[in-house]
């Protein structure tokens, strides 16, 4: 399964993170969980930060033309660079690496279609959209939909729901505004 998704810029800035493994106490026997974790929110944050620092350090320092896999703390990071952004998915040792690599590409293609040739800025200012789309792609660290068309359709439907709600709200506030004139 995918343990987490990490989008980082070439400068090491985090653009998106999504965790699918709850790093609870009982699972700490794994290598990954040798890292300090305190159970509190800030403890969790420092754990996440440490993970990201370690991993981004490893990935960003890799020369081009090496393979897309890095072994790390008993897990495996599958990453790919698109322009200035690194997409990284962390999986179990025995998972199928190439399949994961193509999930990354699948996600990028969907983002590309949604934003119309996506760039890092799109994802910075619309990070919430990146989350919506990711949620249509992955749940529980597994792929839920492999059709780009279906994902695009679902996201469009969500957008229109939000739009309608907004229009309704503004029409209501117009009515109120007029009534109280």
């Amino acid at each position: 399964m995918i343990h987490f998704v990490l989008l980082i810029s070439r400068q090491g800035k985090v653009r998106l993170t999504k965790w699918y493994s709850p790093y609870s106490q009982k699972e700490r026997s794994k290598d990954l969980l040798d890292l300090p974790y305190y159970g509190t929110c800030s403890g969790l944050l420092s754990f996440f930060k440490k993970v990201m620092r370690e991993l981004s350090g490893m990935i960003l320092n890799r020369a081009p033309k090496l393979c897309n896999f890095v072994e790390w703390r008993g897990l495996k990071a599958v990453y790919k660079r698109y322009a200035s952004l690194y997409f990284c998915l962390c999986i179990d040792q025995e998972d199928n690496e190439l399949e994961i690599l193509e999930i990354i590409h699948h996600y990028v293609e969907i983002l590309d279609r949604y934003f119309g040739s996506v760039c890092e800025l799109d994802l910075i200012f619309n990070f919430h959209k990146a989350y919506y789309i990711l949620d249509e792609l992955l749940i529980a660290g597994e792929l839920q939909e492999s059709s780009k068309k279906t994902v695009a359709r679902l996201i469009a439907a969500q957008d229109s729901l939000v739009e309608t709600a907004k229009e309704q709200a503004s029409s209501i506030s117009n009515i109120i505004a007029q009534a109280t004139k």
Partner: protein
Amino acid sequence: MALSGMRGLSVFISDIRNCQNKEQERLRVDKELGNVRTRFKNEKGLTPYEKKKYVWKMLYIYMLGYDVDFGHMEAVSLISAPKYPEKQVGYIVTSCLLNENHDFLRLAINTVRTDIIGRNETFQCLALTMVGNIGGREFAESLAPDVQKLLISSSCRPLVRKKAALCLLRLYRKNPDVVNVDGWADRMAQLLDERDLGVLTSSMSLLVALVSNDHDSYWSCLPKCVKILKHLARNQDIPQEYTYYGIPSPWLQVKTMRALQYFPTIEDPTTRRSLFEVLQRILMGTDVVKNVNKNNASHAVLFEALALVMHLDAEKEMMSQCVALLGKFIAVREPNIRYLGLENMTRMLMVTDVQDIIKRHQAQIITSLKDPDISIRRRALDLLYGMCDVSNAKDIVEELLQYLSTAEFAMREELSLKAAILAEKFAPDLSWYVDVILQLIDKAGDFVSDDIWFRVVQFVTNNEDLQSYAAIKAREYLDKPAIHETMVKVSAYLLGEFGHLLARRPGYSAKELFKIIHEKLPAVSTSTIPILLSTYAKILMHTQPPDQELQNQIWGIFNKYESCIDVEIQQRAVEYLALSKKGAALVDILAEMPKFPERQSALIKKAEDTEADTAEQSAIKLRAQQQSSNALVLTDQRPVNGTPSSNQLTLVKVPTTSSYPDSTDQELSQTNGTLNKVDSSFPAPDLLGDLLGPLAIEGPPSFTAPASQNMTAEVDGFPNAVEAGAIVPVGKQANSVQPIGNISERFLALCMKDSGVLYEDPYIQIGIKAEWRAHLGRLVLFLGNKNTSPLVSVKATILPPSNLKMELSLVPETIPPRAQVQCPLEIINLHPSRDVAVLDFSYKFGNDLVNVKLRLPAVFNKFLQPISISAEEFFPQWRSLSGPPLKLQEVVRGVKPLLLLEMANLFNSLRLMVCPGLDPNPNNLVASTTFYSESTQAMLCLVRIETDPADRTQLRMTVASGDPTVTFELKEFIKEQLISIPAPQPPTPPSAAPPVGHPMVTTPPAFTDPGAMLAGLL
């Protein structure tokens, strides 16, 4: 592109981007947090839009790596907003900010449930997504049935159902005990007929999780998986939108093949054939193309197919095809494929018969060890490590040593550990081993743990022919200008112990050795000085008659360190000085170190431990386990224990007879050819390698009782056959007389209690009554003639195993009509073993010659004495027995599912006293007992069973005692009991078990009537 309508958020993000440095960013973030905090405080005035905006800001700040310790409540409360936009934000932000253990999450359970069971499918989707991503135990408890309903509901649209499938997967994965999947096999099979590929992909992930836990329930899904795979591979009915670069959903293909790998085998020939057709097509039909994505996707499928082929034990031809493919892959330039080629070739090593083909690629693999990519080098190292054996150890280890000097630090530790392990496991000769370790210390001293150099010292000490060689080598290294401190330690130790063997050589006189070692002293740390001091003392001792100058020099050094602040150094200095002034006494006290007891290499153990740690539910690992458990039943699996010295270096040249009982049995059963089952008590080969191999423990007692060996030879492996529960006909005289009742069951029942019927046929009944005290036993055989005519030519011989001394009193040749004869049998348990004694019994009735071989219930647990133990006694004991070989742990699978209470009863009836309350975990069970034998005397044994309430077919067992053989035998014994519990036999209540206190019954009342006799016995 600005955010539609959320200007405040866009402005904030821009501000952050414009910050020149981290400090400015922090200030801006703090300001924003302050702002959000104030706004949340007077919540009354917040519009839904504002709330949304602030919650997004919180997530953004959190993502930047700042602590956001407030506002979680606001995020959670948005979930219950009536409108979609707010709800959506609430769900997404909550699932990013909070984790499953967060208290606020509990507050949302009701709302989430309302959304899941409600009619609004967009709400259902949001709720399922969040639960699927962060749902914990409480969610599983209250939502799992609803989610299950949604998944199989015919009225739900695919978009809801695919989310329900993955949501259920999450809940099941986290809390398999809470999610009820009983009877889900049919549902899953139906789900696999699904036409929507989104739902099918999600369901397949769920299936993988389900079968990885329990494949037995899901056999009905197997043919469906094959069918799906066939459709995909042939691209039948696959909608265009589900093909990815021309490949029909590669993800679904991979998942389906993953699911298939959790089934141990495919028995149905049609299914198997059609699966192999598909696999063959994938193996042969995958070409390298220009488009990288197409390439990746098709190779994702190909590698999964390879894994499945390996798992299914395909025909040799197909396997060699796989190896050939992998051989091609490890030579290509594309780094991903090369990496995966190496990785999968390592997995391939587990397949029998292909190792030799893999070895042909050795040169290519060694090239990859020098690849610029560390990921690839790691894979190459792993593969070389895995493929190493006696034949190529020299080449591979030397290659590793060479690489060590150029390897980066991140890999040196692993490299040196692996090199050391391989050198130890496969050394063709011991001097080579010494060479390798010394080179290792020389090249990567920082990464050579103490374990490694201790080990080399043990070898040298225990092998006399190695000592002068090692001393010369040590001396050579000391000549080098700069050497690692570990090298100083080893060299000093070796020269101190064995330098005197070379005293006649030029450059090896005591004085010269002292000089060259002493030169190193100023540069070493305090941990090395004590070793040097010991060396000096040894040198002094070996210089007879004493050289005055040397003596003064060394005394000077001792004098100097007499006031050293380090206690260890000070004590040694004082003691050596005092001792060396005593003259001859010094020689006695500082004599050469005695040989070390054999023990398992700490290194190899370490390596095994780490392997065990990572044993998760991977298909490949499971397969490895299945293979080793197969070894218990299949006879064609040659045990490795027969040739232990070939794969593990013998510390002292010990005769391999230590493991003879098993190997002889094995050989007999093979040459004899009449057997199709091997003694089920036969441990898996790896266990033997560990425990019986001469390196492993202090050689399991090698009592070579020749008498019993002859016996074994005579019976031609009968104990095995009897074990299999059959009466074995002797020669051509087939028994025309059929036994009444199941002999095997009778025997098992008698293992649990002390009196009962051992055997019965129309003419005779053999009953047993036994008394056990410590390592002694007395068993009375009651031979009852059921007929009105006499039984003649009665013969009873005992074939005892080597661990039991048994004396059967004289058996009369004739048993009169309707009479009963008693034959006492005295038993002494010599040493721990699970071997079983056999009674060879024959008689003649009319023209019928009946001959049966019956196992006697003088089994391991009869020599146990239950003992109750308090927590104060238990824990110190448990801790003091710290690890193998005294304390052994094993995960046992395929256990007959028992409730904890039933298991406790079983244990009590096996004379293992269950001590309730010792283990705080209610799912665990702790028992104690005393084992008696002549060699071990009374030996306290402690047992701990950790059960998994979610899966009663597996448990983890830890057994500890003060004797390695007792520990091992007891562990195996319990395992046998747990795996095959005699079903019809309700466990005897514990009170009936202990025989202590009862007087030895020497003359039980004689029965003349068979019926009365039966009553008396039962």
